[in-house]
């Protein structure tokens, strides 16, 4: 009551009430909070993008016509920051082609098409590591890497990289992120209710792998049932070093940096990782996936997704194979006609609007929201002039001045934008949410970030070319100098023989000629290079 009153009058800045600065509390709309997770049937075709993570794209391991088993690796990671792809069910590979993926641009990416055979036969080559506590942490990390696990909260960063041990920065606390601060989404909430034990075991695997002393399960106070269930499960499992922490319901409480500040009271220093404050953050869904990979030997082939929004007749939490086409999933929830419906991939605050509907569900999909066209704010908004009310400054969890920043970004003043800490923006959308002038601030920031990246790329290329041409000039000059030095050395050796002066004079002219010829030859070579 009192903190809420403080917040209402803006007094929380006088007496810090704990947690991160700023934030908003949008209507929660968690209409699916009480619907149990439903396992969906297999679709007629699965579409598996080769890049569902941050990092390098994968290379396919299978050919068209080949039969694959459930859980079989079908695409391998090509770089360090990458995550392999596994077949979600048994079936036949029917194509390797570009297909639209969930992306705001509607662009296509290479995908593997699999036609399920309906038998769902598993690949049993990976044995479960049931006694993980006595296993080498490196082996567990390798299993997590091989299982294609990425952060399922939406960032899709390969999980094993976050779990690398660094002697200088030991992880003390593992935070299990069950905040789920986005409106509508309830998949993590349901996971905690229905699979509390698995989630906790997954957390235990993480804690063992990074050798952390204690763990915190962070849940917003709008999920009292999940808090009770997790507390009970912790007690039942006898995990003394793990506690459930109740957080105030405030968006973006589930943002990694915000969560760390709420739990530890520390901010992650600029340019550093949570690791540097002794913390590792993992999403509830990721912990479940880690449990499945390590304790059951099942790679990441399905996930829980919230299907909601005012256009969905039967909103639900569904467990879906990765690669299932989104229209198929929506049809299962009673939404067949996608005309005049707008799809959001993720939550309403940070999700992307999908310009194309026939896209697959991927590892990062935590929710699909379908709205009627007229009820989607971002499509109705008409921008008005900024009245400098400062609400965006109040709610920015990153401590930016969004109105000034947007001003510079809109006018392509990217230097000034970076002076206003453009790259500290986490794109949470709080500023746009409260803006009385309906200015799409986040849109401007994304635009500016993209432009800056492009400029940097061009500059790097120009500098590389410049360095190359300079190196070539230097090389040519050096070679010429070396030849000149050699020549004068030869001249000196011949100089004492005064009686052969006449002959030397003749030789000199010869040498000069050959020398010049050589230089020209070198020059030609250089041009070719």
């Amino acid at each position, binding site marked *: 009551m009192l903190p809420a009153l403080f917040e209402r009058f*803006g007094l929380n*800045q006088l007496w810090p009430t704990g947690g991160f600065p700023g934030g908003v509390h949008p209507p929660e709309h968690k209409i699916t909070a009480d619907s149990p997770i439903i396992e969906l049937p297999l679709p007629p075709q699965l579409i598996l993008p080769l890049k569902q993570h941050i990092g390098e794209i994968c290379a396919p391991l299978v050919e068209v016509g080949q039969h694959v088993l459930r859980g079989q690796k079908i695409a391998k990671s090509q770089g360090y920051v990458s995550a392999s792809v596994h077949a979600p069910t048994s079936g036949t590979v029917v194509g390797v082609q570009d297909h639209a993926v969930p992306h705001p641009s509607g662009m296509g990416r290479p995908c593997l098409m699999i036609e399920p055979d309906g038998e769902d036969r598993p690949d049993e080559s990976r044995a479960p590591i049931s006694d993980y506590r006595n296993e080498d942490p490196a082996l567990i990390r390798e299993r997590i890497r091989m299982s294609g696990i990425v952060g399922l909260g939406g960032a899709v960063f390969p999980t094993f990289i976050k779990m690398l041990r660094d002697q200088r920065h030991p992880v003390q606390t593992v935070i299990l992120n069950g905040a789920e601060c986005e409106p509508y989404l309830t998949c993590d909430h349901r996971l905690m209710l229905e699979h509390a034990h698995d989630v906790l075991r997954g957390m235990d695997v993480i804690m063992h792998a990074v050798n952390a002393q204690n763990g915190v399960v962070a849940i917003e106070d709008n999920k009292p049932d999940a808090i009770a269930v997790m507390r009970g499960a912790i007690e039942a499992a006898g995990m003394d070093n793990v506690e459930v922490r109740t957080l105030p319901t405030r968006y973006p409480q589930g943002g990694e940096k915000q969560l760390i500040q709420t739990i530890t009271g520390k901010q992650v220093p600029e340019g550093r990782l949570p690791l540097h404050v002794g913390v590792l953050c993992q999403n509830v869904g990721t912990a479940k996936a880690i449990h499945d990979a390590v304790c059951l030997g099942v790679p990441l082939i399905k996930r829980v997704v919230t299907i909601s929004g005012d256009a969905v007749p039967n909103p639900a939490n569904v467990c879906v194979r990765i690669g299932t086409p989104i229209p198929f999933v929506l049809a299962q929830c009673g939404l067949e006609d996608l005309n005049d419906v707008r799809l959001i991939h993720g939550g309403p*605050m940070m999700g992307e609007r999908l310009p194309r509907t026939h896209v697959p569900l991927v590892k990062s999909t935590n929710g699909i929201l379908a709205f009627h066209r007229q009820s*989607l704010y971002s499509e109705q908004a008409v921008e008005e002039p900024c009245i400098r009310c400062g609400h965006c400054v109040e709610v920015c969890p990153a401590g930016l001045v969004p109105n000034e920043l947007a001003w510079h970004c809109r006018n392509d003043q990217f230097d000034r934008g970076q002076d206003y800490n453009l790259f500290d923006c986490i794109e949470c959308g709080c500023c*746009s949410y409260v803006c009385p002038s309906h200015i799409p601030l986040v849109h401007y920031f994304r635009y500016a970030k993209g432009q800056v990246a492009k400029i940097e790329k061009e500059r790097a290329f120009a500098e590389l070319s410049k360095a190359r041409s300079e190196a070539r000039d230097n090389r040519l000059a050096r070679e010429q100098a070396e030849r000149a030095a050699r020549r004068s050395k030869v001249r000196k050796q011949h100089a004492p023989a005064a009686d052969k002066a006449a002959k030397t004079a003749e030789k000199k002219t010869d040498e000069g000629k050959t020398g010049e010829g050589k230089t020209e030859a070198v020059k030609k070579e250089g041009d070719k290079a």
Partner: protein
Amino acid sequence: MTLLISSPHAHGGDSIRANMLAVILALLPAAGVAVYLFGWLALFLIVLCMLACMATEWGCLKLMKRPTDRIGDGSAALTGLLLALTLPAAVPWWMALIGCVAAIVLAKQVYGGLGHNPFNPALAARVVLLISFPLHMTSWLMPMHAPMLIAIPPLNLYDFSTCWQLFWFGPEALGKGLDAITMASPLGHVKTEWSRGIGAIEALRNYDYSYLDAFLGREAGSLGETSALALLLGGIYLLARHTITWHIPLSFIATVYVLAALFNAVNPEHFAPPLFHVLAGGLVLGAFFMATDPVSSPVTPRGQLIFGIGCGILTWSIRTFGGYPEGVMFSILLMNCAVPLIDHYFRPRVYGK
């Protein structure tokens, strides 16, 4: 219309229009007090100013070939209301009209319209009027119900025809000079007495000053500035609605109070007491409704505190040492100039830095 596909896809429902209407609503108690004190005259002035500002805004938008439905955002109406509340009740109608045109054209539209004006339009217009017509702008009509007046007011302001005559044709039409129907405000009285070598305490005593009347608003002054109570009601509504934050009003009023208290403690005979400073003149109106104008005040909480403190220092200094009896208007306008600088140097702390 551009098709936005960027998140967020939800919105809190706030709008410029809602904010402007909220401020207008919050000013209604003060406007009510104005009608209670100055009768029909207050009503005439308020209606005239609001209509004139909206008409001027419409004309500007039309001239600049901008969408004229912008008039619906309520900002012009609010400027008109604010300007009316800062005027003495006895100003001629054409003077108010000049003020309205100055507010919209000179202080707002020449800078690019809503959101781009460096100064509060209503206050800038008031300065134009004060400098152009100093006599009328400092002659305060004797209000109804003011207990400190020994005689009953020379005019019955609840009489429609009296006010109609006074409003359109001036006091001469009623056979009275301006002097006969106006009086000094408490601040003006103190200033005059100082020039005669009389200290503030003595001056207030011979003015028959009462804190209670000043708080309730039963004294001479501009239309909307007299009643601290009515203004506080509106201010608290705006705070609760989160249209304004506490930073500027609190730091502004507290600074005036502290400065006045310090000097009053040193020389109580000469310097006016702190509570007098807080209740007198346009401080409460300025602190809650003028200095908090979003466009011309800083955006960051720390910046707003600096802004409020600056306003407070300037207000007290102008009242005590300046040539004008009242300093709220000038202090806010002067601090408006400093806003870009304040915004530049008092940014919030960036996460992780």
